[in-house]
């Protein structure tokens, strides 16, 4: 009985740790590690990036599950055509598409997707402040916004300090080997809206950027 209790306590404690990561608005070393890796790999082509120091964690969007499954379907269809088509042009398009989307296969299980939904289910009101000095790997790339920017950001769009990265949340998987980072990169966000970057921890040491998925509805419909 004692052992069973200990086992439950351990299990509960592990679950709570992961849940705490998602149900928290506190930035820890882990978050800075992820931010460093994300900006370094996703925006390695950008010479400089403004970073919005404020983070107000948003709840996880269930649209991610839809979009992720769509990527898997794209891979499946493309791979199928790639392996069966006799048309060179079609093969060229689909084999390439399959190759670039294969990275999503097996990356997330339904349990992971459910975990995100279950543990990141509220919008925070309190804001956290990114200490850009902790973004050591990318310090030469990062520029802090001016005070004027923060004063006016709720009133208007600022095209003078771009590109500007704004983080809207971190969502960890249960085993904490995978994280989704919600972000918008202005002004591209006018077209792409909110995106989730997917990062996977490799060998328990470093974070690898897998890809980005658009979350916002962008379809403009008639009726």
């Amino acid at each position: 009985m004692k052992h069973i209790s200990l086992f439950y306590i351990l299990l509960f404690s592990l679950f709570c740790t992961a849940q705490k990561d998602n149900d928290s608005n506190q930035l820890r070393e882990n978050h800075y590690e992820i931010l460093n890796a994300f900006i370094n790999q996703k925006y390695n082509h950008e010479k400089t990036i403004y970073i919005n120091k404020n983070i107000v964690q948003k709840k996880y969007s269930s649209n991610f599950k839809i979009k992720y499954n769509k990527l898997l379907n794209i891979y499946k269809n493309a791979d199928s055509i790639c392996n069966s088509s006799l048309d060179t042009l079609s093969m060229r398009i689909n084999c390439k598409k399959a190759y670039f989307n294969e990275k999503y296969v097996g990356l997330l299980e339904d349990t992971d997707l459910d975990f995100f939904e279950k543990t990141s289910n509220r919008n925070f009101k309190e804001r956290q402040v990114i200490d850009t000095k902790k973004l050591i790997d990318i310090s030469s790339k990062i520029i802090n916004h001016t005070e004027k920017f923060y004063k006016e950001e709720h009133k208007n769009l600022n095209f003078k300090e771009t590109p500007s990265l704004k983080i809207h949340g971190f969502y960890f998987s249960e085993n904490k080997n995978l994280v989704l980072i919600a972000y918008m990169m202005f002004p591209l966000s006018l077209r792409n809206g909110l995106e989730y970057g997917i990062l996977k921890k490799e060998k328990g040491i470093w974070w690898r950027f897998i890809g980005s998925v658009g979350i916002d509805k962008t379809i403009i419909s008639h009726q």
Partner: protein
Amino acid sequence: MKTTQKNTFKRIVYVVFMALLITSCERDDTEFTDSSQTETKGFTVKSVTLNEVKGNTLIKKSLDLIDSQFDFNKFNTTMASKNQGTYSRATSADPITSNDNSFTILTDEILEVSTDTTKVYTFRIETPTKPESHFENFVIHKKSNDSIEYYIYRYQKIGLGLKDLNMSKEQVSSDQINASDFDDYTQSKMFYDYANNCWISVSVVNGILIIDASDCFIASSGDGSGTGSGFSFGPWAITGVTENDICIISRALLDAYGNVRYDQDGDPMYQTAFVDCPDSGTSSSDLDQDNPWGNSNTDPNYDPLHNSSGGGGSSSGNANGDDPLENIIIAVLPSRLDRETDAFFDNLTDEQKECLNPNSGQAHYSTVKDITAYFENNQATGGTGYDDPVINPQATTLATAAIDAMCNGVGENFQEALDIVISLIIEDEIVDANLDDCSKGILGELKTLQSTDIAEVIKRFGDLNAPYDWEIKTETPTNPNHAAETNWVLDSNGQGTPYDYLTVIDPTYKNQATKIAVARTILHEAIHAYILSYVDDVIENNTDSTIINNFQDNFPAVWNFYVAQENGVAVGNIEDAHHEQMAASFIEIIGDALAEYDNNQQDSTYYEHLAWGALYNTDAWISAQGPGGYIDFNEAEAIVIANNQEDTNGAAANGSPCP
């Protein structure tokens, strides 16, 4: 010193290669050789600045006397020049316009023709004072008795050849001239070499004379300096003058066909040398080691620059004591833009000319003016090659099509015809290959609508020079409940492709709706794509405040959505924002377009009702029904019914379904 000079020269030659000059060409009328100063048959021709004109004491005195009598307005313009290798503006000079606008003198090309006792200065007049003139010059003639006379020389074309000109003179009262504004001009001139059928430009850049004959057809005539090995040299030309008055001469290496040879880097091959300028009278004994007279393997001992029997003799004055300038005309010819414009009219078919100018002359002149202005505003930009046309080729194509349209009775004038042509030709750029036949037919009719606002919307995607691509096709939408969807074309990561828009129309919808409902749907989706194209403009030009302000001013609902989105407080989605904007700004536009499409068979209110389709939940809809709004309950109901009937081809629908 010489090495520096050579390097400087080589740099210049790399930009503007000027090799072949017609030092040995003999002509009866006016002969130019290879200098800014050309002496022949008792007179000298050179390109001068206006300050030099005023430097002549007698002329200045005369000009100063009349200085107060006329007030001239200066305005800025730029002139095309060939001398930079591209058609960038090499010189800028202020033309001078009289108050009565009788003529405008262009002052960037001035020729001075002089004898020992007389001088003539010739300027180009911007727009001919007579419609029949091909071009006109303004001429100041200082006579041997020191009197000054002013003329307008008019050149009328009597044939297709450049020499087929009739010339007439009109003396201008000295009271009409005020030279006080003649300042700051750059020397340049251009003349036609009949022997080689080419234009030669002469100008001064950074103190170095540039004679640019690179568009000449280079015949093997040259100076006879064949090498016997399949190539030869062109004639020597003075291609520059150093600050120490040392002349730089060059000649091009020609292939067996007389064309300029190029090295592996694509640069023209040439020989060059530094020599004393002809008028210094020095011999060629001190020539540089590269001196082609000294080391050429050809037979170039003939020195065109010092040979009195050649084209560049040193004689001056007139043995008979007469003023040869009384009978010699040296014209400042039209600009390259003007020449291309003239060529455009020359190349029109007889039918086109006939229908443009049906025995009256006036209509033709008016059209010529319109087309000339159109070409002036549609010149090729950036990176235009030396031999490429200075007028945007698309402009000439469209102008030709507009003339054809006018000949077929389309449009009251050139501009109207052009607008119609653009609406017909350019809008075909909208991709509809995968659209069902019925919708394609409807789209085709919508493209030709003349309602200004909707034409603007559709035209945006069809402009050949614009980056926006819009494809519309029949396909099941992402959401099967939607009649149609528009979005950016998405890449494999689901991200939008800049400037690429796709509209899909549900095949079920087009089968169940009336044609006017399909037309409304296409217009509705066109406006979505239209707004997306402005979003792209902002993203891709995010440092251009004009573009950003324009977007904010014209699409405030969409702008406000983005402000909220960036701050994480957006309510609804971008689709809602588009619909808000559409309800606020596009109802009337869609209504007018539908009325025109349907030949106004219904009351205008009906079309406006249809325009409200899919916009029922917008703030604009709600406020239109609120206190003070213009839609009452009955009308709101009528709007819903009209849309429902047309969307389903109901019993009360006014439209007819696709076959």
